């Protein structure tokens, strides 16, 4: 009845990658209160990742640890949604430097937050008691994340002309990546089959409702999506994850035996 380790790693990788991204605003936020809020969101995600990696490590046994899983797995082993690894700007290749765009950050947190309030809510009832406990804690956090992001989506969409334009551009840029939510992966299928995971596809209507309602209030248009569907949860990522992990893992890997 326990969720498979690969499924827990998928959840953990999502959390750590988005945690890493959100923390990039630390010291650079548009207003001090947001600097603090984003740090808080990041902290929640890092905390979720720690609990999930710890759970996975325990179940894997051997010499697996939280940090081995976060720091010593390669890009192709990471199972996060591609959406979460994108930098905080519009569509640009990995080595095209660009400023952080807060609209992109907020819209991503919104799209993912809308999913995770549903996922954690489902997992809270999982027969996998360890996972259910993590879900219960994470659900409260996800609700705050969604609330925070949705508030800003509305302010941006219904704020100034510029903020509307930026928010719509971020929505257009990021929406196609949400298609990955609804595709199946072996880890998710196994978790659902074991009765311990959330069937994400069954949450699509609820996600649509949350997203559509906020977009409508924000006077933003939900774009038509077609074409390529990202495959981050299968370990095939964008060009961005390599840079993110290179930075995140570099120091730990330079001192493989060390305790910190």
């Amino acid at each position, binding site marked *: 009845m326990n969720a498979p380790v690969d499924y827990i790693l998928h959840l953990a990788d999502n959390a750590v990658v988005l945690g890493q991204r959100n923390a990039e605003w630390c010291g650079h936020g548009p207003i001090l209160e947001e600097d603090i809020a984003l740090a808080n969101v990041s902290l929640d995600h890092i905390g979720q990742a720690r609990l999930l990696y710890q759970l996975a490590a325990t179940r894997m046994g051997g010499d697996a640890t939280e940090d081995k899983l976060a720091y010593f797995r390669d890009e192709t082993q990471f199972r996060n949604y591609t959406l979460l690894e994108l930098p905080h700007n519009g569509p640009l290749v990995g080595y095209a430097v660009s400023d952080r765009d807060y609209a992109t950050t907020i819209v991503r947190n919104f799209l993912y937050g809308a999913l995770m309030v549903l996922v954690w809510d489902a997992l809270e009832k999982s027969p996998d008691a360890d996972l259910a406990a993590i879900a219960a804690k994470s659900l409260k956090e996800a609700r705050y994340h969604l609330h925070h992001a949705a508030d800003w989506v509305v302010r941006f969409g*219904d704020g100034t002309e510029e903020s509307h334009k930026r928010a719509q551009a971020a929505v257009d840029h990021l929406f196609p990546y949400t298609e990955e939510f609804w595709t199946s992966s072996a880890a998710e299928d196994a978790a659902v089959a074991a009765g311990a995971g959330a069937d994400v596809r069954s949450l699509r209507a609820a996600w649509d409702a949350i997203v559509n309602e906020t977009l409508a209030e924000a006077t933003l248009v939900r774009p038509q999506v077609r074409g390529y569907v990202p495959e981050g949860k299968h370990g095939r990522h964008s060009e961005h994850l390599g840079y993110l992990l290179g930075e995140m893992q570099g120091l730990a890997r330079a001192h493989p035996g060390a305790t910190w």
Partner: protein
Amino acid sequence: SDQEAAFEARIDADGRIEPQDWMPEAYRKTLVRQISQHAHSEIVGMLPEGNWISRAPSLKRKAILIAKVQDEGGHGLYLYSAAETLGTSRDQMLEGLHSGKAKYSSIFNYPTLNWADVGVIGWLVDGAAIMNQIPLCRCSYGPYSRAMIRVCKEESFHQRQGYEALLVMMQGTEAQKAMVQDAVNRLWWKCLAMFGPPDSDSPHSAQGMRWGIKRISNDELRQKFIDATVPQAKVLGVTLPDPDLKWNEERQHHDYGQIDWQEFWNTVEGNGPCNKERLATRVKAHNDGQWVRDAALAYTRKQQQRAQKEAA
């Protein structure tokens, strides 16, 4: 005047001045300068440590560091609030920072060059800051004194966390130990300078003492810091980079070497290694965030108009 007499009497009785109370202009100005400078230090101080968040070598340390930097933002927030009770807006204070008129602690104009810098900032920089700040918990201005009580409590926690992180590293590999020693070598003298110029050269102190804004002299605090730190360094197993540092049985204090005040003033005047980067980064964050603040304002106005329309 009566007001002045009441103010003086309150100060003499070690009482608290509150926002609605009358106070001399010079007192108000001194406080705004000091509190906003302190708030700016918290905000700018997020940058050197923030520099290592993305590269923290374990998730636990990453979480601790994010939480710490977040706390600094929080300190900035309630210090700005304390200063606002004196009639100066946060925007005005930020304008002072961004134009270079207002100062912040010079220690943040040095780079963080290895992971151990994070621990050493906790142990020594926060340690020195606490020494400076504890007397301010009894400061005559109520909102400032209350803010400082909260700040000092959290800073003490950060200091212990920093020291603990260094203890772990000093029990680790040779490379880890070398990082700690390197960080201490670079930061030690800068920390001693944090207490400000020698008492003989310190301009504002007398009036500050009188008003209970400053309660212990620079040199006294510096000596206290050194005396407290030496045994901690011994436990840690690092060498403090001062050949003149030794216990003076007669004084019952540690003697120590000459601080490079020219380097200190260089940095205070804007020509340290990172002054321009720190300030430009804050200015950029502020400017880049303009559209966000504009959006929030525009939305609030629209909401108010809608509410008025409905009411009408």
